[in-house]
């Protein structure tokens, strides 16, 4: 199943690439340079790195608390602070032209964070297993965001 998914993804990339090339050939006036992706933005990298550190600190602190003290009320302000930082980050991505892919990643980060907050609120607690897992998820996601930014042209 994994191989099939991988092949499908690869085929989709190849088709998209081919279509994009054809569009570009048709659209580029002679002598002009083209732009299909946003330029590298250092502010985005710094913002993403800071948010990533804050999320990691949040989960590490939570992990070092005894389970019975991990009630939602104690974590409410931290959830809100990170929610605000992720929302600001997403808005910054929205303002950048040709930046739909990084925008999607920032939306995914915010979506996960809000889901986690609600889950913690509903359960009024969080297990070691979930803390460790979610900490890893955000590391992967924020790392992907930063890597994506570094892949863009200067």
């Amino acid at each position, binding site marked *: 199943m994994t191989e099939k998914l991988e092949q499908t993804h690869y085929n989709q990339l190849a088709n998209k690439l081919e279509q994009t090339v054809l569009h570009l050939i048709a659209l580029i006036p002679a002598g002009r340079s083209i732009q299909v992706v946003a330029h590298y933005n250092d502010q985005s990298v710094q913002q993403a790195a800071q948010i990533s550190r804050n999320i990691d600190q949040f989960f590490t602190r939570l992990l070092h608390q005894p389970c019975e003290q991990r009630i939602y009320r104690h974590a409410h302000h931290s959830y809100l602070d990170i929610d605000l930082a992720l929302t600001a980050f997403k808005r910054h991505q929205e303002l950048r032209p040709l930046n739909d892919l990084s925008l999607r990643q920032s939306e*995914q980060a915010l979506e996960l964070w809000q889901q986690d907050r609600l889950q913690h609120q509903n359960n009024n607690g969080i297990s070691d297993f979930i803390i460790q897992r979610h900490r890893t998820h955000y590391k992967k996601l924020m790392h992907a965001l930063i890597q994506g930014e570094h892949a863009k042209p200067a």
Partner: protein
Amino acid sequence: MNMDVATLLSNFPEAVSAPLQGVTHELRGQVQQLFNQYHQSLAELTCARDKGLISPAQFNIELGREKLILEAQMINQGIVIKAALQAAIDTAFATQVTSDTADPVTI
């Protein structure tokens, strides 16, 4: 502005596709690596469910998260391809077109 359209169109596919081949080969390796990580993560999740560390409902939520994380990682491939494509096309045009116009075209 001087441009030989016939020469440009005949050389264009090769001029653009050659630099992209290296990129797509590299991306294929990265896709494989991401799917391996995804596979391992699902195996850990299944093990946790079987051991009772998470409920079946939580298991389903975590499955959705795994998919979303994988999607976020895959998005980078799109960025890399777009950036490589932009560079390849610019290079192809720069070698075949002479112009004093420098305005970029956004798509």
